[in-house]
């Protein structure tokens, strides 16, 4: 138990933004990708945001294995 409600909200907001962007770029998120996104920390999410612009696949982003 180490996050405040506000911090949980910040993470949820970034996840929501990423889900929309990823779906827009690569189509509907497979459950595996959605699961990995859900498990990411704030720092990981923040870093992922920057990669979305240049990535060409879920795999590029480390969200899928193949």
């Amino acid at each position, binding site marked *: 138990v180490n996050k405040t409600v506000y911090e949980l909200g910040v993470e*949820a907001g970034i996840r929501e933004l990423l889900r929309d962007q990823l779906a827009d770029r690569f189509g509907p998120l497979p459950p595996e990708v959605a699961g990995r996104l859900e498990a990411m920390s704030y720092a990981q999410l923040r870093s992922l945001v920057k990669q979305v612009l240049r990535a060409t696949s879920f795999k590029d982003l480390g969200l899928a294995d193949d």
Partner: protein
Amino acid sequence: VDDLDHDQRFKTLIQEFFDDFMRLFFARWAERLDCSSPEWLPQEVFPDPPEGPRRVMDLVARLPAREPIPGARPTDGAWLALVHIEIESPDKAAPLRGRMHRYHVALRDRYGLPILPIGVFLRVGLDGIGIDTHLETFWELEVVRFQYLYVGLPGLDGVQYVQGDNWLGVALAALMRIPRERVAWLGAEALRRLTEAPLPKRRQFLLSECVQAYLPMDDQLRAEFEELMKAEPYQGVKAVNKTVYEQGIESGQRRMIRVLLEDRFGPLPKDVLDRLDALPGERLAPLGKEILRANSLTELGLADDQQRDRP
């Protein structure tokens, strides 16, 4: 999360509820001092060599004492004193000790008034409420022995305070020690009591926001909390409070959109940042998708002319 300003939130709370704060944690001192209408001195800036060239003190109040202060002189018939409060959010007590002493010396030299020093620890419990000591020695010689009052919120019993009759205490219970199985109940109960409290709306808001901002949560506890808020005694509570969770969502999205825009178009001019800050929350998610395809800030409605855009 990087830019939360815990100190600022607390400064506002303590200024607004100063009398409650003193009665709640330092009752004996509250009896001696007239805490009903303190004069808040402008932010005091002093040199602070170990941690940087200059630092700003958190809060300094000037107020009259209710009884003569031994060793002091009255000013225009009143026994004036200062209350100096520092709010410490890191999870260590040590850095505050030396700072309290340095600030104390600077305040005493500047105002020549007796000073009551108080430290507020947001993440260190110590003994809950007590007196902490800063010691400076030279071999066996105790050169400086400086004491200040403190409250270490995690050292206090949140379940007890949330049921108390001091409204500030009800809100601050969110930062106190709470058994995991009672976190959701405590949050819901604090919000219910504050929503029903006979307080002006602004004060209700400040206290409720404190509960939502600091209640320690993870996903499981949050789900428990949400479920509990649907139950009978709490149904009216949620409608009244715009949740801090929602504020967090908006802040996270705004922050990431700025990161994306800077990545695409370089450093953002002030007027673009102003426009971004002024966008309503519901505009953020669509904007996040538009950035993927946009060729300019103008296309996104964030700049007026092409000169500011970078290919």
